[in-house]
């Protein structure tokens, strides 16, 4: 069976709350069946609004959303059959775990023994068997989160929406829940639309990530592509760590360009620059710049060490390089001794391929 690549489809969707500002601008997004897609972006970027429109709590100001090729704008939320996990879990505090899970089945008039079976299955899926008679308040944050996930899945919805579901958990729990949700998704193959502002979460869990900013999808691609090949400076800045140089293109050929900085010149990979004189921001990942490179690299510069921070598995070094005092290097914790002392001058090199000349900030 071929998978429907347009299972959920946002077609030219605009959304405005006050008639003055567009929170979502001309959104076109296709989500294929069984995909785990994450909407990632800073707060106010319109990602939660998109989710709410899909769930039916907000109506698009313009455009249409299709679910399995059916327009859904006029279908009320309770008829859409979309499961949802809320930011604060939204478990019903006056019902036991069992009653919470049985709620979507009861309103669908499922038979009692069928309900029992499904609730049992859903609870064992989130490894909470035996918690049926507990009240939500008697559960820890992580357990409540699992109940919320189980409740959103228990009625076998076609799509599950998750609105920053791990926001309230502490770091360790959040990480283990990320893997758990990922595994549940892999096991049952439901389509998941996940909203978060945590890039780590997005990178570990998703098949594809839509990076939102200013009501628009800036980039929609797989996690590795998003990190390695950001298409604009917002994505480069938002995903992972990033060293940037602002400058002007002085020479350009097919896959290399010369960028003149305030005090110096570097070679870069032209991504969103086309001609001489274009302003640009060059972005380099910290781990792509090496100290005292052994291989030949086409960018070689000298910088002064401003700060050294020990991180266990690696050491972060802040350099003053070509006038950028915030140039970060990540030095892996290996046996080769480097003289990382404050004030020392060190040699740094990187390939022009890894220095992406993007749009100016």
């Amino acid at each position, binding site marked *: 069976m071929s998978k429907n690549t347009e299972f959920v489809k946002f077609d030219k969707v605009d959304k405005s709350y006050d008639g003055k500002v567009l929170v979502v601008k001309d959104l076109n997004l296709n989500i294929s069946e069984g995909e785990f897609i994450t909407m990632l972006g800073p707060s106010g970027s319109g990602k939660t609004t998109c989710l709410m429109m899909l769930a*039916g709590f907000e109506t698009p100001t313009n455009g249409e959303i299709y679910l399995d090729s059916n327009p859904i704008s006029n279908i009320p939320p309770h008829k859409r*059959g979309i*499961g*949802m996990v809320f930011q604060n879990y*939204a478990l019903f505090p006056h019902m036991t775990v069992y009653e919470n899970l049985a709620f979507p089945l009861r*309103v*669908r008039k499922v038979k009692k023994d069928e309900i029992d079976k499904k609730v049992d299955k859903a609870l064992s899926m989130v490894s909470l068997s035996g918690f049926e008679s507990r009240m939500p308040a008697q559960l820890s944050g992580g357990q409540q989160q699992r109940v919320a996930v189980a409740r959103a899945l228990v009625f076998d919805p076609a799509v599950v929406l998750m609105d920053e579901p791990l926001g309230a958990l502490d770091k360790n729990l959040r990480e283990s829940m990320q893997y758990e949700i990922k595994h549940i998704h892999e096991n049952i193959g439901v389509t998941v639309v996940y909203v978060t502002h945590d890039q780590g979460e997005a990178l570990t869990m998703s098949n594809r990530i839509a990076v939102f900013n200013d009501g628009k999808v800036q980039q929609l691609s797989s996690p590795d592509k998003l990190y390695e090949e950001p298409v604009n400076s917002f994505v480069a800045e938002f995903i992972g760590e990033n060293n940037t140089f602002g400058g002007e293109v002085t020479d350009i050929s097919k896959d290399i360009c010369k960028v003149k900085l305030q005090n110096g010149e570097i070679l870069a990979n032209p991504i969103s620059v086309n001609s001489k004189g274009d302003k640009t921001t060059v972005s380099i990942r910290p781990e792509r710049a090496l100290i005292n490179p052994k291989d030949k690299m086409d960018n070689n510069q000298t910088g002064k060490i401003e700060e050294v921070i020990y991180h266990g598995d690696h050491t972060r070094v802040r350099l003053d390089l070509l006038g950028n005092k915030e140039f970060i290097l990540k030095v892996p914790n290996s046996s080769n001794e480097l003289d990382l002392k404050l004030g020392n001058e060190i040699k740094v090199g990187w390939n022009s391929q890894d220095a992406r000349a993007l749009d100016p900030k």
Partner: protein
Amino acid sequence: MSSETKQILTTDGIPLEISLKKAERKNKIKAFLLVAPLLLFLIITYIFPIGEMFTRSIDDKMITNMLPKTFKSMETWDGKELPSEEVFASFLSDFKVLVDKKEHGKLAQRLNKEKNGFNTITKKLFRQVKRNKIDETRSIKEQIMKVHKRWRNVEYWQAIKRTAPPYTSAKYLKAMDMYLNEDNKITQVSEDRRIHRILWLRTVEVAFFVTVFCFLMGYPIAHLLATLPMKYSNLLMICVLLPFWTSLLVRTASWMILLQQQGVVNDFFVLIGLVSDDNRPEMMYNKVGTYVAMTQILLPFMVLPLYSVMKTISPSLMRAGKSLGGTPFVAFWKVYFPLTIPGIGAGCLLVFILAIGYYITPALVGGASGTLISNQIAYHMKTTLDWSFASAMGLMLLGGVLVIYWLYNKLVGVDNIKLG
């Protein structure tokens, strides 16, 4: 032995418990001194007056003090036939003291309450005593019996004996339209004189329906308040609170202007042709007026607890209910409504308790069929000056409220009340 060896000592060798108490004593005293003024205030203004009311409502010492010797000599009397010479003699001696103090009138009044007819015969006896007609060397029993034939009737002496205990439940029985008859049995008063029971029932009925009306009107308002955006909800909140800031009398008076037969509401009804001009309905000086005015006045007491509870209910719960497949009604009934029960309980209890003791509004707009038990209490406080009866009814009201509170606690649990 084991308990002594297990006792934990501080490093200085003092038992830990003693040391802890010592360390905390200062804080305890401080805390007590901080609440002491309030405690004193409560005792003076609340506990003491209620105690005073209670003693007043059952107090019957006046007559006990008037006829000390009589009651002492009556102790051995079986109450079946006329008492002995000794009882008559001590009664006369008590009576003479009263005559000297000019308090025989009070005695006559008190005895007449116990049994009709005492007034006349006490006055007659007084005249005989005043003229020194009674010769103490002869049989006093014979002489008193001659004063009036009722003195020969054993029922009157039984009545005197019934007044002997210093405490009486008569006021409480009276409030229930009952009394103790000659055989010391609780009896209902004749049907045409049963007024209090109607008042009690009406009070409970009015309080109940006012609570229901307040709930029906307050719930949507509170919901609106809790869900509207701030700038509108603040305005609405002021509208709800406005009656709070207006004098109760002004509010009631404005209802009088609105509801009277030539009032605004009736004019409007006539204008839109709902009623004819010569057939304007009576909306005041009856229960309708009481209902309308009391519901409006007590509405904030329902809205505020409901609002404070609804404010804490996350809107995502309703959304969750809908996204899981519940229709808006199911989501409301199964998810939202159960969560507001603590507020409903608090609001209803508050409104009911306030309504059951409401006074000014029914007094002004209630008329004859709209007055409540509190108006009756006020009447006895101010007009008949029967304070002990007023106290008895007040305490019964208080008792009723406590019973409701207890029932509520049994059914819903007081811990579930949320006032804010």
